[in-house]
């Protein structure tokens, strides 16, 4: 895997960025239900920046690459999403470190670090009706599938499924963080924009992986 690890990371990050840009309107509409409607715009503008500077991002090693991506995001995305998503990428990069290869366990550790970073930055936790309510079950599922020895292609399909279910499940929750939290009980009944955003993006990673990643 070592010769293609950076390429695979490239594929994943690029797919995330492209999904954010493509879904600007959809993500904005999700955020408009009980939030302020800017989630799609913020994410799209930030990841547009990532794509614009794509070829020039420092690819000395995977850790550096991810940290640089995190910095572009933090620097350019406003709203809550800039600090949250930027922190996630930076923490993942710090955990990866100066490496050219990644094991499944390392990927799990990187995701755990991202989750911890978001929790600290957002003073939030699972159950607050945020993107954490997708990221955490997805990470758990990844760990379980790796333990079970599932191959990468099937792992990703499994993650996409978990993500979608977890995102749908946020509809039953009451928002305790973010702008949606100001509406209290009224936030129940609609899915969280960030959670669904992550699920859509994981779906796109899965698709991309099936066509390009396995090569």
């Amino acid at each position, binding site marked *: 895997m070592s010769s293609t690890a950076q390429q695979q990371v490239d594929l994943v990050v690029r797919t995330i960025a492209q999904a954010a840009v493509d879904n600007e*309107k959809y993500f*904005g*509409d999700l955020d*408009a*239900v*009980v*939030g*302020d*409607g*800017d989630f799609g*715009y*913020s994410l799209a*503008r930030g990841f547009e920046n990532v794509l614009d500077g794509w070829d020039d991002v420092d690819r000395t090693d995977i850790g550096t690459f991810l940290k640089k991506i995190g910095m572009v995001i*933090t*620097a*350019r*995305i*406003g*709203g*809550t*999403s*800039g*600090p*949250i998503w*930027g922190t996630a990428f930076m923490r993942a990069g710090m955990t990866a470190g100066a490496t050219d290869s990644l094991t499944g366990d390392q990927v799990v550790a990187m995701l755990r670090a991202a989750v911890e970073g978001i929790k600290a*930055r*957002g*003073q939030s936790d699972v159950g607050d009706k945020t993107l954490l309510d997708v990221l955490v079950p997805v990470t758990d599922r990844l760990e379980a599938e790796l333990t079970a020895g599932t191959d990468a292609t099937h792992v990703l399909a499994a993650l996409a499924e978990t993500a979608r279910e977890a995102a749908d499940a946020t509809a039953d929750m009451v928002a*305790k*963080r*973010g*702008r*949606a*939290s*100001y*509406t*209290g009980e*009224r936030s129940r009944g609609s899915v969280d924009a960030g959670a669904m955003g992550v699920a859509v993006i994981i779906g796109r990673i899965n698709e991309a992986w099936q066509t390009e990643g396995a090569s």
Partner: protein
Amino acid sequence: MKKFVNDPKQFVPEMLEGLALANPHRLRYVPEHNLIMRSDAPSEDRVSIVQGSGSGHEPAHVMIVGKGMLDAACPGDVFAAPPMNYVYETAKLLASPKGVLLLVNNYTGDRMAFDMGKEMAESEGLKVEILTINDDVAVKDSTYTVGRRGVAGNFFVIKAVGAAAARGDDLDEVIRVGKKVNDVTRTMGVALTACTPPAKGSPLFELGEDEIEMGVGIHGEPGRERKKMATADVIVDELLEAVVTDLPYSSGDNVALMINGLGGTPISELYILYRRAHQQLADRGITVTRSYVNEYCTSLDMAGASLTLVKLDDEIDALLDAPAEVPVRVF
């Protein structure tokens, strides 16, 4: 969407450019960081006052940068907190030996961006503090939420710290004054229509022909409850009851009363609201000694208004009375 817009992505930069063109001697526009600052700031003798927040609330905050008010405003995109880097760069440009005070409305995104920006600035040896504003009574404060939002009441905090900074107060004293004003300031708003963010191109939420949203946020966030449309007096009475009983304001108090338009409501209607509020306060034994009827903190083109009370004492009254000079003006 029918708005005066070119490219929605350039909405904020073009607005800032217009503002700078209209105020060539007073303002400096720094496009790289979306920054509007006094052209004569920072000053060695003054704490620099900076307010950051999403755009779409004009004249807050870029149009109240000037003598006696803000030294700089650091806006994000429409309804989005500014990216951390803007905060950091703004703090650096406004650095004064007396310190920089960052005023932040209490929203998650804004707080995170400003916390991160402050940390970065401090790591370079700058003296920076944050003061959070949270005047919105529509949101119930509890340990499970992020607390109350900052809305139109921020005008009074800005005015007071601006006056304190202008007379040379130290950072600690400026913060004391700002907290004091924030502590006696309460606001609640009502929306008659939704607003349309330029990038979204359609209304942020749907309100029926006879529905209003009580306690709406300045980003179009839903409020306390959706109600049937009522007369101006009935609406004022409900806003006033929520605001007055919250602090509470009591018989014998002197207050500043602000009726703030949310962007799409003409000033004629604001005075109809003002009339009732002034009269009802008098009936409660509360005397309005300072009045503010205009747009201060809007929500793009939303039709609606908010009502703010500030409990006055001699110190606050003097700070609100101090002279100031800002781009939003008639002459």
